[in-house]
């Protein structure tokens, strides 16, 4: 196995998340109760998604400056993995919403923004697949993904803070960080974000290598 060290870090952090995520101390809060632990599993999905979308953005900009096919491939695979995490974020969010807000889907800016982000990136893949020429595809996809990233920031970071959202830290609601003893949550939350992100990078890495194998088989 190549580059074993970061894969080992990924495994250690994920094992830490699934054990300490259940055993660690959490602040006692009304309505949320123990479901606050979803912070390590639901919220981390979105964080990991955003980090992978940053990888996509970086590679898209890099491709515009220096059009190497591999850069475009990394951009595509990172956003693909980000979408998997985003779908998991939506599904886990729906379950959590059902038991804290009372419905699978509430008309909330954050939720609709998240769904909007998924649609914007769905369009990215449709756009990619509609262009035959590799160079042209890479260039247009790169330009679009810069736009898509900006839309993502607007949809899930800016708009929810301006409108009324049920999410913590949005629309006048206190964020998790404002609760006392929040460091107990951070102790698991940050390692969890890194762990899930590395898992995404790992899967993305395998997909990229399969692509390379495929290409060398075709040629």
């Amino acid at each position: 196995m190549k580059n074993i060290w970061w894969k080992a870090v990924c495994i250690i952090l994920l094992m830490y998340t699934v054990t300490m995520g259940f055993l660690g101390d959490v602040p006692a809060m009304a309505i949320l109760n123990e479901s606050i632990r979803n912070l390590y599993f639901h919220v981390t999905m979105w964080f990991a998604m955003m980090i992978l979308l940053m990888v996509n953005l970086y590679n898209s900009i890099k491709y515009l400056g220096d059009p190497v096919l591999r850069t475009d491939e990394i951009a595509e695979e990172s956003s693909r993995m980000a979408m998997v995490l985003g779908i998991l974020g939506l599904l886990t969010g729906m379950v959590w919403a059902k038991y804290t807000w009372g419905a699978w889907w509430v008309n909330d800016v954050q939720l609709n923004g998240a769904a909007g982000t998924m649609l914007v990136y769905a369009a990215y893949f449709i756009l990619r697949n509609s262009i035959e020429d590799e160079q042209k595809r890479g260039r247009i996809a790169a330009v679009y993904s810069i736009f898509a990233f900006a839309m993502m920031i607007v949809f899930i970071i800016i708009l929810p803070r301006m409108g009324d959202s049920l999410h913590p830290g949005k629309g006048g609601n206190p964020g998790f960080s404002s609760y006392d003893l929040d460091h107990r949550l951070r102790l698991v939350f940050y390692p969890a974000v890194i762990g899930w992100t590395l898992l995404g990078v790992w899967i993305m890495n395998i997909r990229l290598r399969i692509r390379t194998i495929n290409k060398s088989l075709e040629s």
Partner: protein
Amino acid sequence: MQTKKLFSLLLVMILSTLPGFAQDQIEMADLMRSNGKIYVVVAVAATVMLGLIIYLISIDRKVSSIEKKLKK
């Protein structure tokens, strides 16, 4: 009969205190923790996670071996 009545009276008394109790204390899964049963959940979750990771490692190694074969 007597003990049954006494028991039900006691139960009513305990239940009547519950709403007041819930107001000043937020209910957490402390019972589960004191029983130690939470460790069962942790064991299951950790097993699932470990299983998925082991499978991912085996996929990774398979891809590596194909890469090696192609180089030859």
